[in-house]
């Protein structure tokens, strides 16, 4: 066993380009096979119809597996991508030594965090402090339930999907505030306060930019919206698209709107007292939320899984990760805004603009 581990170690760290390429190829093949499998299963189940209880149960089990795959696969991938993207934007190469092209970097991080102590400070408000990581993780799982990855790959097409998503993503701000308040730390308290007012400020323009989409498509189900898009709504609703993009960046607390965890002001913000796996939950939620808002942007404005030649899920992931890349690009280019500027930008500019956009859309549709 020991020898085997050492061999593995040597493969990790002293791999030549050939071996590295091989590893990458194997990893890619594995992921493709998994994706294809999930797609096929979804398709088969779709064809079976959804009346039978047994099929529902099967969908549930497969759906849970799929969600886990997306959740963890996406987080591992995005952490690596982010560090690599940051590296290349900053004239360096980023993770390189851990596995081929540093691909195993995020796995090493995850395992390390798994073996890290869970410190729970003495003076914290125990229920709030302990519950916050649960609550921040929960919306990520639930929202993935309704996202249409493919015409056949949607775990459950709930007819009020948008409302469900809005309701659950609002929970994130509560979890963050619980973390900030429950830590009884002054920095985390400031972070929590900032977080909650930021999230509520940007939720309104976000909702107001979705309303025109609902007007155009006449459906609250995500699949219905995708199916209604003859052309991507980006072309019909460019203003709503940009409002949604900005609000999305703010909702997931990323630079230039990463005020709740502003490193240079609040040290680490609301998760300052969290260590090990508890911190990892916040980390995981951040990247999953990033994926989710990008996926929703794709669904609402970029015609979701629709596209020529390639299968639906391929189009979906390509578009989503393109949006993710753009948001990362923001992060490594812009400085952070100030807090009152952030709030007032929403209340004084985005919300009036979104309303105006709504009125114009309404007027044009009734002409």
């Amino acid at each position, binding site marked *: 066993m020991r020898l085997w581990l050492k061999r593995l170690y040597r493969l990790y760290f002293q791999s030549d380009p050939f071996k590295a390429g091989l590893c990458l190829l194997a990893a890619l093949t594995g992921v493709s096979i998994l994706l294809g499998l999930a797609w096929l299963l979804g398709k088969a189940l779709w064809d079976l119809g959804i009346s039978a209880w047994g099929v529902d149960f099967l969908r549930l089990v497969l759906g849970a597996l799929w969600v886990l795959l997306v959740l963890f696969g996406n987080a591992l991938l995005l952490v690596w991508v982010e560090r690599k993207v*940051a590296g290349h934007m900053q*004239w360096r190469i980023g993770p390189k030594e851990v596995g081929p092209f540093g691909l195993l970097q995020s796995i090493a991080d995850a395992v390390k965090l798994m073996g890290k102590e869970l410190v729970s400070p003495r003076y914290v408000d125990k229920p709030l402090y302990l519950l916050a990581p649960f609550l921040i993780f929960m919306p990520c799982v639930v929202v993935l339930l309704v996202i249409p990855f493919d015409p056949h790959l949607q775990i459950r097409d709930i007819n009020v999907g948008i409302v469900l998503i809005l309701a659950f993503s609002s929970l994130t701000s509560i979890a963050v505030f619980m973390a900030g308040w429950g830590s009884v730390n*002054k920095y985390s308290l400031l972070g929590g306060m900032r977080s909650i007012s930021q999230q509520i400020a940007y939720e309104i323009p976000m909702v107001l930019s979705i309303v025109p989409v609902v007007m155009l498509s006449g459906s609250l189900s995500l699949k219905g919206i995708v199916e209604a898009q003859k052309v991507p709504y980006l072309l019909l609703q460019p203003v709503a698209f940009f409002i949604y993009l900005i609000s999305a960046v703010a909702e997931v607390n990323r*630079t230039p709107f990463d005020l709740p965890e502003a490193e240079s*002001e609040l040290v680490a913000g609301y998760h300052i007292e969290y260590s090990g796996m508890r911190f990892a939950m916040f980390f995981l939620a951040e990247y999953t939320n990033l994926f989710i808002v990008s996926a929703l942007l794709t669904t609402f404005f970029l015609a979701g899984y629709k596209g020529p030649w390639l299968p639906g899920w391929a189009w979906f992931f390509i578009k989503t990760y393109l949006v993710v890349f753009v948001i990362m690009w923001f992060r490594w*280019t*812009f400085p*952070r805004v*100030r807090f009152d500027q952030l709030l007032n930008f929403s209340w004084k500019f985005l919300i009036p603009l979104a309303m105006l956009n709504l009125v114009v859309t309404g007027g044009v549709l009734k002409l």
Partner: protein
Amino acid sequence: MVAEGLLRDLDAIGCVVEEVPYERKGYWFDVKAQKEKLPELAGAFDQHGYFVEEVVCVDWREELELLYHFNHWDDPRRFSVRTRVKATDPEVPSIWNIYPGAGWHEREIHEFFGVKFKGHPNLSYLFLHPDIDFYPLRKDFVPVTEEDKRVLLGRFPEGDEESFWLNMGPQHPSTHGVLRLLLKMKGEFIEDMEPVLGYMHRMQEKMAEERSYSQYYPNTARMDYVAPLAFSLCYVLALERCCGIEVPERAQFIRLIAMELNRIASHLLWLGTYLLDLGAATPYFFAFDDREQILDILEGLTGSRLTYCYYRIGGVYEDLNEGFLEAVDRFIQRMKRRLKDYDELVTGNAIFLGRTKGIGVIPKEVARRYGVTGPNLRASGVAFDIRVCEPYDGYRFLKPKVALREEGDSFARYLVRLDEIRASLSLLEEAISKVPEGPYRVEKLPKRPPVGDVFFATEGARGEVGVYIVSDGSDKPYRLKWRSPSFSNFVSFTEIGKGMLIADAVATLGSLDLVVPEMDR
């Protein structure tokens, strides 16, 4: 001129003013005053628009001598005001209400020498650890009495449980080192603050008294490690002035080139970390990459990357290495291109403008009363640059262009620093074409400096770097006092920082370009 008007006033107050040779002493007028007349005297200086450069205390065993160095932006002829008090019960009237900047120097003297400043509102610990129960810089062992200890432990908000007190630092990403600010917050706003310094107090001044002149010299570079050559240069030039050594012209040019390269490196480091404070990570990497180019050049010249020990009394350690001038030229061309990139990436960015424009304005009057110098002062519209006002060394041959802005806010400080990089580049371009041939150091040096005192000021990357050396003719300094620009720049923040948002405080603190070990010494 301003000084003449002041001299008449000083006569009226009744002080003995003596004109001293500037070339040997570093100041023009030596004013001897009774300690009771200090506030009146300070008032006269204030009326004529002088600022306090530093306050020095020298322990002459029976008596303590207090020195106030006053200087003027438009008429840079330095006044040295000295007064003597009994060592047994030293008490002096404080001038903090006229010059709040001097009040901070008084706090320092209070804890290091035990001089009591009558009327000072806050004489608690600033630098020292409460366990140190003697006055460290006194020549004899003088323990801290119970009563003094109470004063020193005075102003900690132990009982004040109702307010929101926030410790910013010592371990905080945006204080760049171990500065600690105790902030009294009102939500996101700062109501009041109490800085706690001295986490990096490394006894530079005490050490100077224990070591010989040349033994102490390498440590000068460890004070302001971002632009160490300014401190080295200041120390070396002060001793040269004291001994009357004339340095060969080639050495002066080499010193100037190295100094300007170091200044650019320092400003680049500031640029990177400042943008990091504002949340933009990428400029940090760009700036550090450019800085590495300078470090390569300076490593070839001096042999080390960061804490140089290159200047020598009477010249420099080694002649220019092969290919040095070409490397500098290559760097100048590269840097000119890169400055355009910075302009595109940072200067026009709307978020950056929103964060820095109109934030942390230092008015001229505040700058004067606190003794702010360097780029921070020049961003407030005062063209005060030691390189131009009191030209020393190579700057007697080459005049740098003084970057100037009127606004006084963080954005102006950013622009001034970028302009200074440009000015330094053109100065370098001129210098490398004019480096004369000849020896690079003088062969014969005196063993020890003569008895007397000397002050020397140079323009570092952060402002006026000054050193005051008292020599008793032995091979060790009797007293050595640094004027560190960051300290004066920082204490101005205690006034302008009140009522700020915490985000603005970070933006302002970053724009002041502080180096903590230089403040703490």
